[in-house]
């Protein structure tokens, strides 16, 4: 498959219009359909390096974003996710088309990818070892993940860690990093070279912008890696850096609380999580300054 950037813009628009565009991210093939011009432009920017094909025979997920018919076409236009003729989610303002695309991707993965233990966590890799960062919204997870990626760590995911059930390795599914509100400015200042999609205001999460995943992370999306650390980040303004160990059994329960399908997997999930906790010591990280946190991660990566 060639990268999406090889596709000329008219061909991209036509493929999106006709529902022929298939993008690959990690183990998943996404078929995308939309006539929204902004979708084409943002995909071309943020998914330029992803393998793309036209008329692929199979796709895991089908994402059709369209404008609802009727009055909404003219007054406060919206975007809706169409799944085989049904609309499972409330339509959103048209400007939120790309965030909706990303949310629908997350929804598909969390609802369907049960050959993995799905952890609500970012994951980054260096020297063949993965740091898993589970955390609820507001903990600074995505900000820290974006900064680590801009500082040379490989992006495996910023949102949903896929732990393989057969060998316990982390399956990459690198996608644009979703940043919210003040985090957008923080990362723009930290990494001026980072590429961002448009800022979208007034979403349910505030203002959102997506940072393009590094090309190297996208090209290495088939390379799974072994988990080495579980780090629960907690951003606190002006806090001094603290890395506190978490007892393994407590880490088990905290990671389980952050899983999408732990209960569904039953004993397989229990065994997978047990292996993870055995392999990756867990810590809680309190940080107030990104550079301090990054230096700590680099020290972790340098340990034998």
């Amino acid at each position: 498959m060639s990268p999406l950037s090889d596709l000329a813009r008219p061909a991209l628009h036509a493929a999106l219009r006709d529902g022929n565009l298939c993008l690959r991210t990690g183990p998943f093939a996404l078929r995308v359909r939309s006539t929204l011009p902004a979708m084409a432009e943002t995909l071309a920017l943020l998914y330029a390096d992803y393998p793309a094909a036209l008329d692929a025979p199979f796709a895991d997920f089908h994402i059709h974003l369209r404008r609802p018919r009727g009055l909404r076409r003219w007054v406060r236009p919206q975007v809706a996710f169409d799944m085989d003729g049904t609309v499972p989610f409330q339509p959103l303002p048209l400007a939120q088309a790309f965030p909706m695309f990303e949310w629908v991707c997350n929804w598909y993965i969390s609802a369907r990818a049960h050959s993995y233990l799905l952890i609500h966590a970012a994951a980054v890799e260096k020297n063949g070892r993965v740091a898993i960062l589970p955390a609820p919204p507001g903990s600074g997870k995505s900000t820290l993940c974006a900064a680590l990626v801009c500082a040379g760590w490989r992006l495996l995911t910023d949102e949903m860690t896929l732990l393989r059930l057969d060998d316990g390795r982390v399956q990459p599914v690198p996608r644009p990093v979703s940043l919210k509100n003040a985090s957008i400015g923080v990362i723009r200042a930290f990494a001026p070279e980072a590429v961002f999609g448009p800022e979208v205001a007034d979403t349910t999460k505030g203002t959102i912008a997506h940072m393009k995943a590094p090309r190297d992370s996208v090209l290495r999306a088939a390379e799974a890696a072994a988990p080495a650390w579980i780090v629960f980040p907690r951003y606190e303004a002006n806090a001094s850096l603290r890395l506190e160990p978490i007892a393994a059994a407590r880490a088990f329960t905290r990671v389980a609380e952050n899983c999408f399908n732990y209960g569904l997997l039953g004993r397989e999930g229990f065994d997978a999580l047990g292996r993870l906790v055995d392999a990756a010591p867990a810590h809680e990280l309190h940080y107030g300054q990104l550079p301090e946190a990054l230096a700590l991660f680099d020290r972790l990566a340098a340990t034998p």
Partner: protein
Amino acid sequence: MWKLLEGQTLNCRGWDDEFMVYNDVSGDSHLLGIDAMELLRRLRSGPASEEMLAEALAVAPDEREGLALTLEQLAGLFLIERL
């Protein structure tokens, strides 16, 4: 008399003095301390009365109330049941 609930295999993982146990009946996972885990292990070898368990685990007389409470809690989790 107490016994393990039918179907429980006590699939567990332990770290230091804490254990995670997978409940084959409910599909839940439980965080247990070492004493509760020892009770389950003893019951895996066969049904036992509270007195037998107290003796096997060297439970002092003033700790018997705690033993009874723990057994009731394990029953509440569908790990064990009265025979």
